[in-house]
């Protein structure tokens, strides 16, 4: 029979292990952040945000084209991913148990788990090849396809949290179903849906694989949707595998900017969640 003393010892050890695991879970992020700050901060300057890349050998220069390119790609992806994702999420929440809903739910989980490079190949096959060249549009479509399942499932979850009693209250007042869905259900869950959208944006902002043979990257300034476009992850990749020290430094700075963008979006998402079901809207 175990004594109370040994039970306490085991209990203490187990609690200690969970503490350790909790710390280890955050360790990679902390290491990455400190490392990036050490390596990247020295190469960061205003010029990094406003200047174009310089040719090899010339010091200085920046990634203005890649920063703008990433924003353009996020924009295209959001235009595709958000309406489709939110609409599909609304369908799943309102028509929970229809056969179509179950298959959509299953397929979007599959799409969610699809390796991002496969989505890139898909966009290459159906957009790059027919058009004949790489383009921002193809990159945006690839990223948008990644966003759809993310947004669909978070929207569905947020809508299911809206109490049935609110839905019933609106219906009992003589609101048609579609208006109830939009003006009560969607409105009530809005903060949560915004959070889901921001998390999805943060997720795709750093994707590299789907862009390799869609957006392709561009050393020059371009915001045209039909031309190849620069993107931070691509630029980081290209600079990091280059043999030049100056480009390596730029890659570190680029990585720092990219992770900062993602962190800002994630923090914004946390703030949006905070006011869920809170104060009145109007």
């Amino acid at each position, binding site marked *: 029979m175990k004594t109370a003393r040994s039970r306490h010892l085991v209990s203490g050890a187990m609690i200690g292990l969970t503490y350790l695991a909790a710390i280890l879970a955050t360790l990679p992020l902390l290491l990455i952040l400190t490392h990036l700050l050490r390596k990247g901060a020295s190469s960061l300057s205003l010029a990094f945000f406003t200047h174009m890349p310089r040719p090899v050998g010339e010091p200085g220069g920046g990634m203005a084209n890649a920063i703008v390119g990433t924003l353009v790609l996020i924009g295209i992806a959001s235009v595709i991913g958000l309406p489709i994702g939110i609409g599909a999420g609304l369908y799943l929440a309102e028509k929970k148990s229809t056969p179509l809903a179950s298959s959509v739910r299953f397929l979007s989980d599959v799409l969610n788990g699809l390796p991002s490079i496969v989505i890139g190949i898909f966009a290459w096959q159906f957009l790059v090849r027919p058009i004949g060249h790489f383009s921002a549009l193809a990159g945006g479509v690839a990223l948008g396809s990644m966003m759809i399942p993310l947004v669909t499932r978070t929207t569905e979850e947020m809508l299911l949290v809206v109490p049935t009693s609110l839905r*019933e*209250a609106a219906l*009992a*007042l*003589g609101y*048609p179903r579609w208006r109830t869905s939009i003006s009560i259900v969607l409105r*009530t869950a809005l903060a949560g849906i915004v959070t889901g959208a921001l998390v999805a944006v943060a997720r795709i902002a750093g994707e590299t694989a789907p862009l390799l043979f869609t957006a392709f990257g561009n050393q020059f300034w371009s915001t045209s949707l039909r031309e190849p476009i620069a993107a931070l992850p691509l630029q980081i990749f290209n600079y990091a595998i280059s043999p030049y020290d100056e480009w390596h430094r730029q890659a570190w700075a680029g990585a720092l900017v990219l992770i900062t963008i993602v962190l800002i979006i994630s923090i914004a998402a946390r703030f949006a969640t905070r006011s869920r079901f809170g104060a*009145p809207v109007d």
Partner: protein
Amino acid sequence: MTAVAPVAALAAADTTGTMEASDFSFWYGKKQALKSITMTVPPRSVTALIGPSGCGKSTFLRSINRLNDLIPGVRHEGDLRLDGTSVYDPSLDVVALRQRVGMVFQRWNPFPKSIYENVAYGPRINGIGDEASLDEIVERSLRRATIWDEVKDRLRTSALGLSGGQQQRVCIARALANQPEVLLLDEPASALDPSSTQRIEELVYELKRELTIVIVTHNLQQAARASEYTAFFFMGELVEFGPTEQIFTSPREERTEAYITGRFG
């Protein structure tokens, strides 16, 4: 507040808001929740539905405005008529029906919007858009729900900031803003403290002069105090229906007496 009731409604009023159930049965999937209910709820009166949990009284209430339609696998037999027209008539617009039949729920459920927007919500969908009319409807409805004096200075603040009893009265005002003929109350006071309960009961007493009220309650004293007619449901059957006084003092059915005297339920 009777002064503001439309004259036309008063003139034609004698039967407006009459509700009849004839042989009405209702199923959730295979489970039968109501068994051939036949009763007539007289207009401009308060009818209490009493009975133990799961006896079908809420199902009956939610059939009147067809809120049960939302549940998959439900079906019915027999008929339920409001002012002589079946609520299940295929040509009847369920949205229009729900505008004529207001409902207040057990758990107050104001929208996460301002008090004003909550009350104006129903009229807005009926196409009342101009501010002056809405202001008037909001004030009149809040007055009828006896909460105007408490909220008139904070109409634009969240309805969720009010106490439970106040929120419930805002919900009643919200239902009244549609000018319904019938008001369905599903245990409106069961989660409220005694003084809020008393206010709701007084309110019901005032409102019955203008509309038909059907109230589901677990509180027998409340049924006895606030209603003129009482229907006792048991296991999906309507055991007895009659004037409240008769049901409570000389019930014809043994089961009614057993329930009222607290021997079961």
